[in-house]
């Protein structure tokens, strides 16, 4: 087997063996099932609260509470938190080895440092894909099974748009695709931070802190941050939601995906450079 693929296989085995790798799947399953149960029991009250503003003049014809809406709500709620679950595993990829003292052993193998770091990144990417697939499967599959299908009402704070049932599925797949790119960025960021650290906690907490800080800056509607917001990667990580606008903002999506890919490239290059220069003897 090619040394890179051998290293990738080993990295995947390491991820599988770590108990923390399961945490993401357990948390996602628990949250999705809880949301679905809550909506199954009392979803109409939630919908009623949202629609009451215009119900004096209009009434809504059709089934608003359906699987597509539940999936959309789950994605909106969870995609903010999934990066934290990703960082929990990918932030440990290099620093975990350093903490356990296996980094020198790893370096003694006949494989280039760049290949090691790429194998770790690819293993992290596969884990991220698995987690996102599980999220999509539970959020969409389970919701459609429980609530049935129908038109999707995309709720916003100052309005809503209705997407026809046959126009929804591809949007979910495209949104998950863009969300995957966004999560790869987290993978690359935590890997870079992991290179600098000798313990697992540091890069995980640092990644979470950066995400939280950027999200707060991006969420606060203060004019001071208006100019900063476009440069924060967390702003572009939310681009998956653009797929649910009635007229697709193609240019905005292209810009955001490009920014995300550029971030991944820069962070990964930095990780490669730093790992190649890393002193493992002292």
């Amino acid at each position, binding site marked *: 087997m090619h040394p890179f693929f051998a290293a990738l296989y080993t990295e995947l085995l390491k991820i599988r063996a770590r108990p923390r790798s399961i945490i993401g799947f357990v948390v996602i399953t628990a949250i999705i099932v809880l949301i679905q149960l809550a909506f199954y029991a009392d979803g109409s009250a939630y919908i009623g*609260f*949202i629609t009451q*503003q*215009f*119900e*004096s*003049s*209009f*009434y*809504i*014809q*059709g*089934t*608003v509470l359906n699987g597509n809406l539940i999936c959309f*709500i789950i994605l*909106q*709620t969870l995609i*903010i938190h999934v990066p934290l679950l990703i960082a929990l595993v990918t932030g440990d990829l290099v620093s975990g080895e350093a903490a356990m003292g296996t980094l020198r052993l790893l370096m003694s193998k006949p494989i280039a440092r760049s290949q090691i770091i790429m194998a770790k990144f690819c293993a992290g990417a596969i884990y991220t894909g698995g987690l996102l697939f599980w999220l999509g499967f539970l959020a969409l599959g389970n919701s459609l099974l429980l609530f049935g299908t*129908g*038109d999707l*009402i995309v*709720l*916003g*704070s*100052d*309005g*809503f*748009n*209705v997407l*026809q*049932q046959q126009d929804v599925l591809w949007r979910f797949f495209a949104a998950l695709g863009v969300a995957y790119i966004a999560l790869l960025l987290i993978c690359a960021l935590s890997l870079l931070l992991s290179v600098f650290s000798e313990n697992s906690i540091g890069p995980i907490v640092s990644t979470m802190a950066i995400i939280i800080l950027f999200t707060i800056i*991006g*969420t606060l*509607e203060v004019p001071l941050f*208006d100019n900063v*917001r476009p440069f924060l990667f967390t*702003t572009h990580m*939310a681009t998956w*939601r653009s797929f649910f606008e*009635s007229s697709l903002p193609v240019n905005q999506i292209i810009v955001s995906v490009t920014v995300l890919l550029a971030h991944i490239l820069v962070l990964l290059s930095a990780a490669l450079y730093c790992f190649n220069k890393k002193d493992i003897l002292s």
Partner: protein
Amino acid sequence: MIKRFIVALLLCIGAEVIQAQDASTLLNTINQKFKQVNNYSANVQVTTTISFAKIAPQTATIYYQQPDRIKIKSKSIMLLPKQGFDKILKIIANTAAYTVIDQGKVELAGKPVHLVSILPLADTSDIVLAKLWIDAQKGLITQSQTTTKSNGTITAVYTYGNWTRYALPESIVFSIDVKKYKIPKALAADINNYKKSNEKASNKGTITLQFSNYLVNKQLPANIFK
């Protein structure tokens, strides 16, 4: 002198009574036309133009049975006016529930029409005033304006096609007062929405109903109203 004044007064009262009778006759003509409809079904295309809602035109099938059973069947989500599109016909059908004021002939979109105002007698009625622009020649409502206690003013413009003998419209364009829509970002899970809300957004919304394939007084599907 007093005699002349009394004659003039009587003439005025007489003219008012005759005009009111004219208006009542017009409403009666419309009532008679619609009473011929025992039931109907039709396809309807709903086009919504409201500042806070983006909805593509949707289709539905509507079923109606006298006096007030109505069912709209559609798999799509659509916004419909709360007033309902048979409300005006329902109001004028109950002639004992309102007072008619004939406001004479006026022009509407370059055509002469009869303007009739309806004042509900019951204090509990949500409708404060209804104005009807009636094509006296065809005996059809061409426009209505309903002022309600709860929903402001709702205007409806009617156009007719092949079903004028039943007073069934081919299209109705509702113009409705729209309040600003705002829900907390956290509730909508829309925390990354940085777009400035459109303060100049129109406070009028329109809903256009385009009817086709009327089937009047034919057997409706069983249990359709359940």
